[in-house]
């Protein structure tokens, strides 16, 4: 018998390694090459919650896992905005969608038009106790397409005002009951900011400007819609910006930063830090940052974004998170059941979700005394009724090109880099270009 040569030994070892490798990764390889999911009893859930509300979502998912040990839930958190929606769209197109996903209400219509969502039948929903009368009617109606349901609203998240109670106390801005006085005109607002600035010796208020197109859009839209202004019409094919109203809002915003009341160069995290360090008395952002400040043990409260121009009608920028089921490659009743179970569980845990700052749309909780006792979250519950969503259009919605275009222009005004007139011209120009481009959907 010939002795074992080096060549034979290497060949044998290579074969063994290849065999082990193939056996070990055969399951993922096969599932990667085929459509469908890895194993029975699994559930894939995608969301875009980082930061404060991400913590709450993780809590809710852990509760679901504990109550349903027979389901192996795999939750993936992706970066907010474009990165999330491009991945969700591509995954659904490639027949490897998650079972349940989060979608903003303003983006959901585009997903429906692209045929990427499963229709939710009312009898399926009713089996799990989800009926339209138990959901906030504004959010539910807004999510219907041709009378068919595609999304279950989880919350409405408006733009709100945070205020440091200590600083406001010292500035004399709290009334006898300890609540913030009404700032219902531009003069009262500017006055309050100046008083707060005198106390902090730094700034009166702060809003995120750099590297962030969503927040500048939100603060602009809140004030602009209080004046009754619209931006797009006819499903995004017409630009209907009211120049006078828009200039009024932009000039006001510019006065805040150029007057030293707000920092003119600050990014998202910097704005959070400025308010947390007590260098600003007021902070303007979505309500989801509540968990950040509660963890930092800052003495603060929250209330509706001030009604500077609205008078008797309140309006504020808002969007809603909804739970959707992306189009599945095959009909699997058991998978649908698991998905609906997860959706019901999320709705049942509206209390945890509301603790994260959002205004619940699940009426059994929203109308309960428990929610009313939850402060400061219940302070701004009325914002859900005055919610102004982004105008419909294929390029519009949260984190879309519409917000990037408008937010970029508004940020230049806040950052004192462009005059309101130039920024408005730029915005109108770019939106007109988008509105005249043929829809790819």
């Amino acid at each position, binding site marked *: 018998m010939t002795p074992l040569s080096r060549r034979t030994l290497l060949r044998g070892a290579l074969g063994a390694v290849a065999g082990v490798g193939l056996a070990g990764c055969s399951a993922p390889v096969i599932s990667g090459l085929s459509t469908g999911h890895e194993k029975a009893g699994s559930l894939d859930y995608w969301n875009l919650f980082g930061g404060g509300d991400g913590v709450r979502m993780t809590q809710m998912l852990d509760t679901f896992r504990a109550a349903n040990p027979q389901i192996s839930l795999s939750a993936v958190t992706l970066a907010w905005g474009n990165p999330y929606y491009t991945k969700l769209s591509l995954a659904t197109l490639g027949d490897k969608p998650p079972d349940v996903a989060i979608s903003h209400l303003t983006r959901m219509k585009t997903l429906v038009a692209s045929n990427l969502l499963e229709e939710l039948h009312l009898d399926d929903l009713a089996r799990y106790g989800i009926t339209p009368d138990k959901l906030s009617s504004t959010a539910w109606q807004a999510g219907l397409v041709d009378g068919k349901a595609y999304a279950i609203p989880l919350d409405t998240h408006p733009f709100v005002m945070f205020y440091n109670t200590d600083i406001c106390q010292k500035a004399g801005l709290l009334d006898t009951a300890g609540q913030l006085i009404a700032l219902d005109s531009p003069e009262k607002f500017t006055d309050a900011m100046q008083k707060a600035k005198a106390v902090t010796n730094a700034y009166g208020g702060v809003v995120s400007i750099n590297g962030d197109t969503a927040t500048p859009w939100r603060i602009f839209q809140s004030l602009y819609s209080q004046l009754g202004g619209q931006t797009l019409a006819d499903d995004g094919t017409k630009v209907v910006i009211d120049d006078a109203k828009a200039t009024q809002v932009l000039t006001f915003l510019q006065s805040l930063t150029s007057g030293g009341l707000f920092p003119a160069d600050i990014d998202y995290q910097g704005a959070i830090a400025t308010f947390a360090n007590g260098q600003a008395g007021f902070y303007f952002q979505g309500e989801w940052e509540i968990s950040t400040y509660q963890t930092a043990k800052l003495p603060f409260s929250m209330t509706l974004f001030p009604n500077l121009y609205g008078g008797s009608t309140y309006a504020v920028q808002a969007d809603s998170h909804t739970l959707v089921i992306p189009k599945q490659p095959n009909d699997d009743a058991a998978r649908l059941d698991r998905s609906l179970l997860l959706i019901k569980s999320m709705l049942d845990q509206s209390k945890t979700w509301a603790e994260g700052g959002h205004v619940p749309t699940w009426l059994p909780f929203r109308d309960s005394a428990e929610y009313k006792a939850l402060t400061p979250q219940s302070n701004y519950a009325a914002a859900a009724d005055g919610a102004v969503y982004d105008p419909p259009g294929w390029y519009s919605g949260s984190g879309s090109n519409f917000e*990037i275009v408008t937010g970029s222009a508004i940020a230049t005004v806040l950052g004192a880099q462009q005059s309101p007139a130039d920024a408005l011209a730029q915005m109108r120009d770019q939106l007109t270009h988008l509105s005249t481009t043929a829809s*790819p959907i």
Partner: protein
Amino acid sequence: MSTTDAAVRRHRAGAAAPPPKPIHAEHHALPAAGFLAPFLLLYLLFIIGPALYGLLMSFFDTSLVRPGLGSFAGFGNYAEALQSSDFWSSLWHTVWFTILTTPPLIVVAFGLALLADRVRYGRWFFRLAFFAPYILPSAVVALIWIFIYTPGLGLLETALGKIGITSPNWLGDPNWAMPSLAITTLWWTLGFNFVLYLAGLQEIPRDLYEASSMDGATPLQQIRRITIPMLGRTTTLVAVLQVIASLKVFDQMYIMTSGGPNFATRSILELVYDEGFTNFRTGYAAALSMLFFIVVLAVSAVWFALVRRQEKEV
């Protein structure tokens, strides 16, 4: 076996033997093809194939969310791109980024390589220190520098403030955003050119320096007349690699500024991403990338001409 036998036979045959036949590849053709096949297959499947499909797509109004190629658009996508101010400004931003990064990346790398070459003790430490940033992934580098550039709280602003300089809004000011990204890229990719130059320096024969110093050359003259010319090929390589890599820049813009502020740092590849994935218009994005391909092709043609001229000189 065949080489030595043939040579021996020729020697025995004498001076009148016919010139030796070249080693023909007959016996090696099949194994060679076998070794190349896996790579060729993957190359065709993942690079050539999609590139050709992209070329096809650019003539249609292909959409990300609709199957198939969509309606025929002819040269419509190209016409729209060439008339779009977004395209020209993105191209300019990319070119500006290339101009901002390429000269420093060549000059500073060369300078550091010279210094590291002359260090007597601890040369390994300097090689490690200057090369280490290069092994970091782009996301890590971007996050580190976002912290450094943070307005109000960042390291750079605090450090410059201590010596009395008020720093600009690094990532938020349209005039400073691109230079800030260039500085980040300089720190990150310097190591690669540095290592190339260091290797090139070590190949220059020492006796050239000795001979020149005997003739009375100053160190500066030595650098100008010996080092730089001898490093000519390395410099050409570094320059072209650098220019092509700078033209393809995406990561820094995408992570650090998202193409902002107010689109001031949007590179051409980021425009392709915005149009193709955010706007769902993959046909138009394919046309943009084809136009960009022509630009890169032109740059490569310049390199090819340069290298061929250098090869002829040697």
